[in-house]
């Protein structure tokens, strides 16, 4: 369902979309059923067809069963939703698979700063490349990110990855993702951060290994020279 509205470009995009689908099916079922019964009653018991109302308190067991059975079924559906939501959450936000490379992301009023790692995939070497508002990644590599903010709250959001994480000044937040599709996508700031919030956009470029190697070599030359 979600895949037809917006691309899935990370390893966990499909998993999140599956949770959304489960909620849509179960929630949609109850919504249609309830609205259906509501509108049927409005039609069936309009004054013209039903001039005198029935008298019932709804306090007897037989009458309450009409409420209790749907109520119990709602609890069962809730359990299913909770199970799907929690297992996906565990995989995406609590679990941290081993990384091929680590990047640093710093939000500031009103730009994103990205540090690309050296060839070992680790930050802190002389090969680090820091650029503003453009993040280059290799497809099918698992990345850890170290997310920081230098002023106010920001939120690092990549809709095609189904990834969103707030950045908080004074903290380094670690997370992960694995791009699965080459191309150019938007990076947004999803937390209001001042007058430039509406223009705080960055570019995400996912490349294959060769293109990435070529780009980063050129970039290293440019920043050194």
């Amino acid at each position, binding site marked *: 369902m979600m895949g037809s509205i917006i691309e899935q470009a990370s390893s966990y995009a499909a998993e999140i979309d599956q949770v959304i689908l489960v909620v849509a099916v179960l*929630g949609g079922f109850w919504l249609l059923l309830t609205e259906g019964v509501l509108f049927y*009653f409005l039609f069936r018991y309009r004054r013209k067809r039903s001039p005198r109302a029935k008298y019932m308190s709804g306090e007897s067991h037989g009458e309450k069963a009409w409420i209790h059975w749907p109520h119990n079924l709602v609890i069962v559906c809730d359990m299913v939703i909770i199970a799907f939501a929690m297992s996906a959450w565990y995989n995406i936000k609590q679990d941290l698979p081993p990384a091929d490379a680590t990047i640093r992301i710093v939000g500031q009023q009103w730009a994103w700063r990205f540090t690309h790692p050296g060839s070992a995939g680790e930050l802190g070497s002389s090969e680090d490349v820091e650029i503003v508002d453009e993040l280059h990644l290799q497809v099918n590599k698992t990345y850890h990110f170290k997310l920081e903010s230098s002023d106010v709250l920001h939120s690092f959001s990549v809709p095609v990855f189904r990834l969103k994480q707030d950045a908080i000044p004074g903290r380094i937040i670690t997370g992960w993702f694995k791009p699965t599709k080459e191309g150019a996508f938007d990076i947004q700031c999803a937390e209001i*951060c001042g007058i430039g919030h509406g223009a705080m956009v960055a570019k995400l470029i996912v490349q294959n290994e060769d293109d990435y190697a070529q780009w980063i070599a050129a970039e290293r030359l440019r920043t050194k020279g």
Partner: protein
Amino acid sequence: MGTVHHSPASQSRLASIWHRYLFSTDHKVIGMQYLFTGMAMAIIGGFFAYVFRMQLAFPGKEVLGYGLVNANNYNMLITNHGAIMIFWVAMPVLIAAFGNYLIPLMAGCDDMVFPRINRLSYQIFLLSVLVLIASFFVAGGGFGGAWTSYPPLSANPAYNLTPNGASLWLLAVALEFVAFLLGGINFITTLMNSRAPGMRMYDIPIVLWMIVIASVLFMGSVGPLIAGAVMLLFDQTLAIGFFDPSKGGDPVLWQHLFWFFGHPEVYVVLLPAMGITAEIITVFSRKKLFAYKTVLFTTIAVGVLSFFVWAHHQFISGIDPRMANIFTITTVIISVPITEMMFVYIATLYGGSIQFTTPMLFALAFLAEFLIGGVTGIFLGASSADIYFHDTYFVLAHFHYTFVPIAIIAVFAGLYYWFPKMFGRMMNDKLGHVHFWGTIIPFNCIFIPLFYLGAAGDHRRIYNYENFPDLMRGHMQDLRIVATISLLVMLAFQGVFLYNFFSSMFRGKKAGKNPWQANTLEWVAESPPPHGNFPTLPVVYRPPYEYSVPGRSSDFWPQNEKA
């Protein structure tokens, strides 16, 4: 209990109006003060929505009546639209106006227990309105850090660039909370201590229960927020650093304090709306409320649970990810009592004799639309789905599908229903129907496109989507235009309401005491009720919803009728 103002004959007419309408301790006048102030604020909040929706649909074009909207104006408009609609429209109208007007009348007493505290409550509220409006015009402009006011943006003038606006805004919010604390004390005390003789706990009309339970929720949750607001005020003005990490503070602390209040707040406004709906659907289906005790106990259950769901606003805010699991469970579970209430209301309609009057249409629309708001909330309560939907237009559409039914649709239902009591005349039913369809259809046409836009990636509080190439694909801009035009239609139809409301006040058909043939005690009083409400205080003999009792020729049975 009520203190009556005896104006000396020598006093001029102006001075007596001044006393009667501005310094009255009569609960009905105070209710009206809250109602009209709330309506005036709704016009300001609606105007703000019009301006920023125009900017979104036609970016960079001059907006009629406002001019060009820059990023700064845009942030100020959305911030204050949200704050006004929740704090200065939903709260004063649903809790304060209906609560003040209805509690003494429906409980069968002459006034609130503490009439002077009641007057003070409105005066502080009025002060908060004035401070808020002043904040739009100070140097640097109005506050633009969103109605949630997250620090460090809201705490540091170097970041928000509105040193005066931010502090005045916060002061206005704090004053408003004080006003409602005073009101809440009155509501709870009056209902518990001043009911008509014979009115036992289970004889209290559901709307009064819900307003009082809402007041309890408000009083229980607002403390941490008032503390937080004072801390934030210190951060803004003295740079103390409660929320500043470089001084050992923590910005996320504010989010906990804010949402610990903010989520119960949703139920604080929902419950009175549910109560109003209960009164109306029973009267216009001539049915007893299905399972009164179930409604009452699920209301209490919702109230208790609402204190344990707040962190679902913070799944991705940097809290420990393990905490999200707990709050997913509580949040999804709160759907159980809420659906239970919905089922009970629908069961009430079963076997009824339904009349589609204007108040009934609005009450039914509240149920039908709020269901959509409720179901879409589950996407956001389910932690992993929220990773994607958080801070998108999906969230925005979801909470407008809850807040518009609550603060607009249910309020209209209540106004059309109690108008005859408030002003002694009937509103025009034909114009009411025009207003109903002119509100409901455009409302759906505004927010259904916004659900889609949110799912497609539109994030919130963006003044111009042309900056985001991925968000200009396909028909996304067209959908933004559809939403804006629907808003214009919806706003235009409110003119029908205003005309109907004010012209019926003077020219409507005389209503008599009980035009809807309802059971509850407010319909025993004259329309409009005089100061003191009842000539002799009524005595209650039965529960409030005895409609269509077998063996009786009349299909209603007022609470105060002996046999």
